[in-house]
């Protein structure tokens, strides 16, 4: 038995060594200026790994792209990323490693729960934190003075959708509205704001439908929706959840118009839901790969240098790319003060920063870290995405 245990260990070691042998990269060219290292807390292997992985690839790609162009004002840049598998405890450990051991001055984060968990540390250690979560709570500058929210918050996204729905409502009666969400802080963060805005606009609220993020059956909820006669339903979840909803809604012939927020609407929805996705509307804060905007040229150039094309990446890649772009722009504007407070100042001097069409222009000030209140609405039509609006806000 002892021998067998030894054999297992040897096998593992051998496998690790073998993998290590293949992984050796070429040494970076000698640089005269100091390297700038930004931290990354990302999910590659956890439950949101499906969207976390392309997001991380996009962010890494931008760092590499910038290095290829001579770095940030001559400074080579690097994204030191740690996979935390969507576990708050591991996020805390990763954060401590990045800040207290590696000594990064700023971090690109990921989920709602972990970003929220770290907001106290981030404020105390003065580490600017740009995350993949657009939770409304993170825009509270008193509680989160070092958190930056890149795109329209979930609440604002819901408001944009509601405003558009009301403006395009043809009938005289009040439209009926339902919310479909998953029972997590991420899934419920927009609810309160969206409901009070809906009442302001004159929607009639009918019951909410709660679904698990990984559910494969939404029949009960869709029957409820049908009975309630909801004209619109706002989906907050990931594209997996949205696909389940759309498929079951089609099966049961639910007449509701579904509108998904950022994470519930991307290319995957068409693959997963097929024809059931037709007519589905999404709030889109970032561009899709291959869109006709100036910023795509850089992404295209980068992808081609790697022997790839737009077909190899998705919208979350663009999102990661733009997050890295904004973070590094903040570093550039720090004027050489590459510390947490310096980068925070840099980010706060971003005024109407134009990501060349990859997202809405971003503005951070010392009073507000709400990067944007704009998003576009797109609809799935015949398996493709068609924009219904330009960048709009609810105001």
């Amino acid at each position, binding site marked *: *038995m002892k021998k067998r*245990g030894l054999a*297992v260990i040897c096998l*593992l070691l051998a*496998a*690790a*060594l073998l*993998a*290590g042998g*293949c*992984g*050796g*990269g070429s040494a970076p060219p000698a640089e005269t200026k100091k390297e700038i290292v930004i931290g*990354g807390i990302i999910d*590659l*292997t956890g439950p949101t790994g499906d969207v976390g*992985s392309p997001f*991380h690839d996009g962010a*890494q790609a931008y760092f590499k792209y910038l290095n290829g162009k001579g770095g940030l004002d001559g400074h080579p840049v690097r*994204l*030191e*990323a*740690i*996979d935390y*598998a969507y*576990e*708050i*405890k*591991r996020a*805390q*450990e990763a954060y*401590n*490693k990045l800040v*207290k*051991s590696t000594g990064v001055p700023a971090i690109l984060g990921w989920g*709602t*729960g972990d970003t*929220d*968990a*770290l*907001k*106290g*540390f981030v404020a*105390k250690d003065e580490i600017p934190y740009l995350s993949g979560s657009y939770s409304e*709570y993170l825009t509270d500058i008193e*509680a989160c003075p070092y958190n930056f929210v890149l795109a329209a918050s979930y609440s604002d996204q819901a408001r944009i959708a509601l405003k558009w729905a009301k403006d395009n409502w043809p009938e005289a009666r009040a439209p009926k509205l339902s919310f479909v969400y998953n*029972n*997590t*802080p*991420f899934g*419920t*963060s927009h609810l*309160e704001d969206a409901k009070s805005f809906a009442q302001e606009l004159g929607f009639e609220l009918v019951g909410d439908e709660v679904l698990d993020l990984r559910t494969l059956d939404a029949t009960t909820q869709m029957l409820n929706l049908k009975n309630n006669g909801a004209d619109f339903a706002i989906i907050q979840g990931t594209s997996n959840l949205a696909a389940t909803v759309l498929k079951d809604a089609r099966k049961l012939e639910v007449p509701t118009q579904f509108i998904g927020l950022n994470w519930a609407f991307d290319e995957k929805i068409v693959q997963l839901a097929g024809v059931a996705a037709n007519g589905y509307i999404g709030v889109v804060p970032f561009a899709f790969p291959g869109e006709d905007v100036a910023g795509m040229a850089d992404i295209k150039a980068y992808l081609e240098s790697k022997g790839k094309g737009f077909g190899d990446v998705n919208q979350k890649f663009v999102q990661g790319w733009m997050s890295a772009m904004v973070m590094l722009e903040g570093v550039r504007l720090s004027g050489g003060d590459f510390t947490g407070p310096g980068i925070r100042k840099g980010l706060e001097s971003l005024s109407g920063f134009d990501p060349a069409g990859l997202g809405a222009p971003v503005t951070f000030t010392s009073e507000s870290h709400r990067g944007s209140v704009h998003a576009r609405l797109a609809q799935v039509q015949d398996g493709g995405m068609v924009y219904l609006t330009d960048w709009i806000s609810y105001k």
Partner: protein
Amino acid sequence: MRNPLVMDCGVFTSNYREDMAILHHPGAKLKVLVVLVFFLALPFMVNAYYVSVVNLIGIAIIGAVGLNILVGFTGQISIGHGAFMGVGAYAAGMMTATLGWSFWIALPAGGLAAALVGGLFGIPSLRLKGLYLAIATLAAQVIIEFGIIHWPALTRGPAGMVLPAPTVGGLVLNDDTTFYYLILAITVGAVVFALNLFRTRTGRAFMAVRDRDLAASVMGINLFKYKVAAFAVSSFYAGIAGALWGHYLGVISPEYFTIKVSILFLAMIIIGGLGSVMGAIYGACFMTLLPIFLRETADYFGGGLGGLTHIMLAMQEAVFGLLIILFLIFEPEGLAKMWRKVKDYFKLWPYSY
């Protein structure tokens, strides 16, 4: 003075007090002292990152020891431990953040609140055993999570709650080092309490219930009382761990106390060794350090998160799973048993028979 390099061949006691001592050997006392001094000096020897890792381990130890009292010593399974941690964290959080009470009152009160709720969910344990009880405690997990999210008037819902740092006199415990000593003190207290618990009437009753509850009941042990008590004590530990973690982070939200946390704690005590206080400690260390160790290994061989990232990371999860399976197959009694075997080997060496 005895020679510290010579192995003991036995312990001679001449009164009951000596007989009942937790640390029999003079060498053991010295060992514990050395370990304590080491941990007291640790923050001065390593950087803040390592201190923060030890902090996480300390909190995990408190939770794991608590769960082991219920699962390992009383034989009742619970997959609601994460939720009971949440009850402690939220109860203490409400007291410090909303009511402005002192942390030193809120911490034990948080533990008591968790004990109350845990005891409540332990009531079905009289009728339910094994898988049935597991599902009943799963219900606790779901109900408590739902309650935290959908009762914003009390818990501030998904927004989470910002908690103030504890203070001692004028000293604010808001960094890793100061919190380290707080966690260390509570962890030592929790472990010593648990070690002693199983030398008392209550602890013996717990073990009797575990070994055969019918026989225990025939012997006059009040099953209901002790089963619920085990839940309450275990949940008290969970509540303390939750309240500590919440105040260490400075913020709590419903996403912290999910079923994943419950399962992680179960894995800790199974790998560490069921029914062993030391086992819970080893398990907590192991399960907290393993992901870090695997990540560092992956980074070392994969060259950071470049090229082979995805394969290495996927492998990391696989190795994690593999290790757990290997443990269950080759050493179901966990790390505690392995450590005991190592000690026995050296104790008898070179005459192994």
